[in-house]
C-alpha cells in the first residue's frame, strides 16, 4: 500500500469511525425516543383505565346520569387512544391486542349493568353483582396488561441503554484498535524507510557505490529508492571519472616534471635538476657530516667525432656515454648533462676514493663497450675531474673544483682521472676539515 494512501487512510478511518459513532448515537436516540413514546402511551392507558375504575366505583355508590355520561366519555377517550396505538414489538403488541379486545367488552358489560340497575328487583341481585364483578375483573385485567406493558417498556429501555453502551464501546474499542494499528504500521514503515535510507547514506559515506538499496517496495519510498540508486550510480560514474582524471593529471604532471628536469637527448637530468638535487645533497651532507663528491667528465675529442661522423652520431655517442655511466652508477647517484658534452655525476655519501673508483669503472666500461656506429667502431674515452665538497662551499664551488680537476686531466693527455686537491691541508680526502 502506498504511503500516501495509508496517510489518507488514517484521517479517513477517523472520519468513518466518527460517522459510525454518530450514526449509532442517532439510531439509539431514535430507539430511545420510540421507547419513551411507548412508555408515555402506556402510562396514558393506565391513567384512563384507572379513571374508568374510579368512576365505576362512584357510579356503584351513587348511580347517576352524570357518572354514567362521564364513564361513557372516558371509555370513548380510552377507545380512541387504543385505536391510535404506535407500532410495538411482538410481545407488547400481544398485550395491546388483549387490552383492545377487553376494552371492546367493557361498554357491553357496563350497559348490562345499567339495565340491571334500572330494575329495582335487580338492585342487589347476584346477577348484578356478578356483572359488576365481571366488569371490575375486566378493568383489572386491562390494568394488569398495561402494567405488564410498562414493565416490558422499562426492560426495553434498559436493553437499549445496554445496547448503546456496547455499541459505543465496541465502536470505540474497534476504532482505537484500528487507529493504533494504523499508527504502529505507519511508524514502522517510516522507521524502516529511514533505516534503509540511513544505511544507504552510510554506504555512500564509505565510498561504497556498488551496494544498491532494495527496490521491491511499491510505495512512494520505492520510487525514492530507485532515484537514490540512480544518484549513487551517477556518483560512482562521476567519482571514477574524477579519479581517472586525477590519475591523468598526475601522470601528465609527472611527465611535465620529467620533461622539465630531463635532458631530452640523453634522458639524464638536466642542469636545472642537477642544481636542485645538488643543493639537497649538500644540505644533507652538511647535516649528517657525510662526504659528497662530484665527477665532471666529458668525451675526449668530441668535436672531431662530430665533424667526422656528423652530429647525429655525436648525439648517439653522448647517449652511449650516459648509458654506460648509468650502468656503473649506484642507485643514489645522479647523472646530469652539464654542458654540450660535459656530464656531472653527483655522488652522495662518497669520498674522493669512492669517486675515483666510479671514475675508473666508467673508463673501464667505455673500454669494454666501445661505441659502434653503423659503419665502424668509434673509440671513445673520457676525461674525468673529481672534486669533494669542501666546508662552507657551494655547489658552484664544487663544480668549479671538479672543472679544475678536469682541466688538469685534459692537460695530462686526456683519458685520465684527476682529483681536485684543496689548498687547505687540513681538509682530508673526504673533504672534511680536521
Amino acid at each position, binding site marked *: 500500500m502506498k504511503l500516501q494512501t495509508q496517510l489518507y487512510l488514517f484521517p479517513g478511518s477517523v472520519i468513518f469511525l466518527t460517522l459510525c459513532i454518530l450514526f449509532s448515537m442517532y439510531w439509539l436516540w431514535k430507539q430511545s425516543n420510540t421507547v419513551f413514546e411507548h412508555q408515555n402511551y402506556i402510562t396514558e392507558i393506565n391513567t384512563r383505565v384507572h379513571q374508568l375504575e374510579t368512576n365505576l366505583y362512584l357510579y356503584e355508590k351513587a348511580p347517576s346520569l352524570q357518572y354514567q355520561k362521564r364513564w361513557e366519555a372516558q371509555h370513548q377517550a380510552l377507545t380512541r387512544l387504543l385505536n391510535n396505538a404506535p407500532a410495538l414489538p*411482538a*410481545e407488547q*403488541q*400481544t*398485550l395491546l*391486542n*388483549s387490552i383492545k*379486545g*377487553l376494552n*371492546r*367488552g367493557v361498554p*357491553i*358489560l357496563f350497559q*348490562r349493568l345499567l339495565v340491571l340497575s334500572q330494575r329495582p328487583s335487580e338492585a342487589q341481585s*347476584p*346477577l348484578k353483582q*356478578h356483572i359488576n*364483578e*365481571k366488569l*371490575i*375483573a*375486566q378493568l*383489572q*385485567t386491562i390494568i*394488569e*396488561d398495561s402494567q*405488564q406493558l410498562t*414493565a*416490558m417498556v422499562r426492560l426495553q429501555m434498559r436493553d437499549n441503554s445496554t445496547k448503546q453502551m*456496547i455499541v459505543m464501546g*465496541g465502536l470505540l*474499542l*474497534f476504532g482505537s*484498535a*484500528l487507529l*493504533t*494499528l494504523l499508527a*504502529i*504500521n505507519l511508524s*514502522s*514503515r517510516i522507521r*524502516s524507510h529511514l*533505516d*534503509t535510507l540511513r544505511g544507504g547514506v552510510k554506504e555512500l559515506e564509505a565510498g561504497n557505490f556498488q551496494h544498491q538499496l*532494495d527496490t521491491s517496495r511499491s510505495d512512494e519510498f520505492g520510487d525514492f529508492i530507485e532515484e537514490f540508486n540512480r544518484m549513487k550510480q551517477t556518483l560512482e560514474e562521476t567519482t571514477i571519472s574524477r579519479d581517472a582524471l586525477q590519475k591523468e593529471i598526475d601522470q601528465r604532471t609527472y611527465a611535465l616534471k620529467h620533461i622539465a628536469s630531463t635532458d631530452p637527448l640523453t634522458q639524464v637530468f638536466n642542469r636545472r635538476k642537477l642544481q636542485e638535487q645538488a643543493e639537497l645533497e649538500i644540505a644533507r651532507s652538511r647535516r649528517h657530516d657525510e662526504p659528497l663528491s662530484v665527477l665532471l667528465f666529458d668525451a675526449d675529442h668530441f668535436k672531431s667525432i662530430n665533424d667526422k661522423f656528423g652530429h647525429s652520431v655525436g648525439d648517439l655517442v653522448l647517449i652511449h656515454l650516459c648509458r654506460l655511466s648509468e650502468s656503473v652508477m649506484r642507485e643514489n647517484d645522479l647523472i646530469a648533462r652539464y654542458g654540450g658534452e660535459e656530464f656531472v655525476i653527483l655522488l652522495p655519501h662518497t669520498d674522493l676514493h669512492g669517486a675515483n673508483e666510479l671514475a675508473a669503472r666508467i673508463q673501464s666500461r667505455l673500454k669494454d663497450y666501445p661505441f659502434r656506429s653503423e659503419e665502424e667502431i668509434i673509440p671513445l674515452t673520457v676525461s674525468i675531474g673529481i672534486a669533494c665538497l669542501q666546508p662552507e662551499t657551494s655547489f658552484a664551488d664544487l663544480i668549479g673544483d671538479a672543472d679544475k680537476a678536469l682541466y688538469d686531466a685534459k692537460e695530462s693527455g686526456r683519458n685520465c682521472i684527476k682529483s681536485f686537491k684543496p689548498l687547505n691541508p687540513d681538509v682530508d680526502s673526504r673533504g672534511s676539515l680536521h
Partner: protein
Amino acid sequence: MVEKNSNSMNSSFYLLVVLLIFICGFFVLGTYFSSQPEERADFPIRIAVSKTPLSTPVYIADEKGFFQKHCGDVRLKEVVGGNRSFESMAAGNADFATSSDSVLVYKAFNRSDFVALASFVQSDNDVKFITLEDSIQMQGSDLTNKKIAVVKGSASEYFLSTYLALEGVSADAVTLMDMPPNEMPDALESKMVDAIVPWEPFGYKAMQKLEGRAKVIPTKNLYSLTFNLVALKTDLETRPGAAECVLRSLSEAIDYIAINPLETQKIIASRLNLNSDFIFWIWPDYIFKLSLNRSLLMNLKSQAQWVVSSEKSGQTVPDFMSLLDPEPLIRVKPEAASLPSSGEEQGSLDNTIQ
C-alpha cells in the same frame, strides 16, 4: 530483507492481538445476550388439544416448529371440547389438557389433583345461543319450558345459566339436554331441541348447516371464557421441564400470532378445516395472551360462587389458589404471572364476591 520481514511480523502480531480482543469481546457479548440454555424434555410430550380456534396457540406452536424447538417431540391429541381434553389428561392419555375456566370450576368441586399453569386465550363471544329463525322469540319468559342443548359441566352450561338469569328465567323452567357440540346442529334442525348452546366452531357450523333457518341471539361479553393449559400435579413432579417448554412454545406462538394474524388465520382454517370467512369473523373476539393472574382467580371464584348459589347444593367454593401453579410461567415469562398471596387474595375476594 530480514528487517522487512521483522516489520511485517510485528504488524501481523498486533493485528492478531486486535482480532483476539474482538473475538473475546463478541464471545462475552454473545454469552451476555444469549438466553439461558433451555431444558429440552427427553421424552415425548402429549397434549390433548380441544378442536376449536381457541386452541390456535397450540396449533401454531405445532405448525411453526416452536414445540420442536423448545420441547423436542410433542404430539397433539385432538378432542372435541375442553371437558374431553381434561378427561383425556386425567385418564393418563395426555400430559397436558386445554380446558376452559368453566371446566376447571366444575372439576374443582370433585377433585384437586390438577393445576392450571396459564391461560393462553380469552374470548367473550365464543359460546353462542342459537335458535331456529322461525321459532318464537327466545327471550324473557319465552324460554320457559323450552328444551335447550348444552354440554354439561362446561362453559356451555355456565353460559346458559348466566343468560337465563339475565333474562329473568329460572334454570328449572327450562329442560337441559346434555349433548356434545358437534351433535347440536342436527338436534336443532330436527327440532329435537328449541335452542342450542355450542361453542365455536360448532355455532358457525350450525348456522351453515341450517342456512338462514337459524339465528344467533346477541350475547357478546355475557360470558368471557379463558382457555387454559392444565396438568396433573403428579405429572409435573415426575416430568420437570415439560410445562416450561410447552409454555415457552405457546409464548412464542402468541407473539407470532400478534405479528402475523392473517397467516395464522389461514393456518387455523386449514388445520380445523374451517371456512376462512368464519375465522375472520370470530377473530376479533379472541384475545391471545399468556397469563396467570388475579383476574383468572376472580373469574374462577365468581363462577364457582354462581354455581353454588344457583344449584343450591350446599357445596363450598373450592380453594382455587391451590389449583393454580405459577412457577413454570414465572420461569418463562415472570411478568405474566401475578397471583396475589393467600392473605391478600382472601381480602380481595371478600371485597368483591360478598
